[in-house]
């Protein structure tokens, strides 16, 4: 379980995250939503151990301030929004970097084929020999996810659940790959791991999330299930946009929801 209590984070002198508390259970898919500048990414960076903070953050009961980098690396993996490289790595070489910490949890025999398996999971089978820099933004994002998956391949290791932190994992993906990536996160949670993701798409969030944390001006405005959280009032207040949950467009306007996919 990821436990966050009374968390405040400063960037320079401004308080970006203000007194946030929540718990993200293992086995659950927790999604952080909120408008631009509401503190989502800063919250994620604090969870990742990148920023100093006030309050407590714990993974499986241990405060991350007391954990060594390699211990954290064996318990959680983090997908950044985007990663640019200055050297010509092949896709396979990048994915293999995910196994640096040596706690993938895959058997010794499976370790050799793990990069290929991870690439197949993100629908990039056969891309191992391509150069990372020559891929499109969406493909690069999926390569990074394959790398991150290699780091915590088994959602539960030695009885301890492990966690995936995903910062806008589907931001540059087409609808098919959005669904594939969300399904990977869902599976990870179903197999006993925990997932915390930042998303902008409320439909995908509602479709896959167990719990939603709504960030608003640095505060956690609300924490709950999609049904509890996604209400007209709250969306108006947080996003300053008068939307109607479940509202349909005019009959003549086509609309496509991810929920209609035949998974």
């Amino acid at each position, binding site marked *: 379980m990821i436990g966050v209590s009374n968390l405040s984070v400063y960037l320079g002198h401004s308080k970006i995250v203000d007194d946030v508390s929540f718990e993200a259970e293992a086995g659950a898919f927790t999604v952080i939503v909120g408008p631009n500048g509401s503190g989502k990414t800063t919250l994620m960076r604090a969870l990742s151990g990148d920023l100093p903070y006030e309050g407590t953050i714990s993974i499986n009961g241990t405060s991350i301030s007391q954990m060594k980098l390699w211990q954290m*690396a064996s318990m959680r*993996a983090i997908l950044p929004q985007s990663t640019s490289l*200055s*050297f*010509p790595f092949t896709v396979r*070489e990048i994915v293999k970097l995910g196994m*640096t910490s040596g706690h993938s949890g895959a058997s010794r025999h499976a370790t050799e084929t793990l990069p290929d398996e991870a690439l197949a999971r993100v629908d990039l089978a056969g891309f*191992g020999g391509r150069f990372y820099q020559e891929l499109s933004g969406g493909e690069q994002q999926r390569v990074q996810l394959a790398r991150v998956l290699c780091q915590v391949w088994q959602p539960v290791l030695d009885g301890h659940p492990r966690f995936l932190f995903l910062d806008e994992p589907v931001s540059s993906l087409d609808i098919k790959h959005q669904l594939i990536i969300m399904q990977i996160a869902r599976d990870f949670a179903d197999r006993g791991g925990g997932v915390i993701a930042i998303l902008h798409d409320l439909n995908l969030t509602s479709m896959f999330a167990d719990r939603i944390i709504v960030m608003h001006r640095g505060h956690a405005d609300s924490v709950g299930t999609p049904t509890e959280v996604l209400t007209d009032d709250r969306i108006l207040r947080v996003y300053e946009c008068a939307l109607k949950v479940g509202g349909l467009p005019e009959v003549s306007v086509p609309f496509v929801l991810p929920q209609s996919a035949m998974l």
Partner: protein
Amino acid sequence: MSEAVLRKPAVLASVWGGRKARPDGDRSAIARTVIACLCVALVATVIFSLAFGASDASVVSVIKSLISGTDGTESALSVRDRIIIHDIRLPRVILGALIGASLAVSGAVMQGLFRNPLADPGIVGVSAGAGLGAVSIIVLGGTVLAPLLALFGLYALPLAAFFGALVFTVILYRVATRRGQTSIATMLLAGIALGAMATAYMGVLIYVADDKQLRDLTFWSLGSLAGANWVKILASGPLIALALVISPFLARGLNGLALGEASANHLGIPVQRFKRIAIVTVAAATGASVAVSGGIGFIGVVVPHLLRLVIGPDHRYLLPAAALLGASLLLIADAVSRTIVAPSELPIGIVTAAVGAPFFLWILLRRRGILDL
């Protein structure tokens, strides 16, 4: 069968064309083959360098002489040739190999550290810092810095250069890197400022230098392996050897750092400690080389770049391969420099710059995009 047919051209393309990796993207086999070939090439270059020069000895007799040792009475070489080879060429070849290796490795480590294929101690002012340290000892060793000279003896020069390089690397890193991201433009501009600063201070020192010191300084600053002897190897060798021994342990960290500082941390790599070790290693390798041989440019940027085209940027292979190729290339450059205008000789820095600078421009032409960041 079909797999072999498919793969062989890919391997060849990777060696000759430099752009295609094996279908599965695993270049470790190619890298190991290249490293083995570079080992053989280095041995061949060493023997060739010993035999080749203003006074020619046959390759076979050189090998025999090396095996039988300095006092081998049945040596195939004349006494004169033996002296030339053992007391003049052998120290020069050893020093050349050490310096070539250390320049290439410090280039590769620095590029990994700054996440930037253009970072090279010679280009971003670190060599200038080392030079300032060395010049200070050459000019002020008799007066202001006499206590240092007395304390460290023949190690004073390489240590002063190491210290100069260290200070400049730390300043450069502080200026060019913010929150783990290095700005290429800031790095290059800071390098220009640091270089100008070092040149200015060196100018002051040159102004107060006497005639003998001036002559020493001029030859030193052009970059030369002439005057290599066992004492110089003893003085600079340990620092270079230390840097070369540490460098393989930096490989894992440099690979992680390619993803950015935060992601490297997330992989469990202690980035802060690792960066400190890398900076000291670069400073030691650069400082010790500059102290002996002055400014030998472009080995540090050309060698890693060539190797990345063939074996990829995985530092576990890149660092040893760079050491081997750097050593071989510098020995070849040295062979050219001491024979092209024989019986006189050209400072080696002129040879490496004449070949390396156009090559550097070619890299820029091909990869102008990276400067637009």
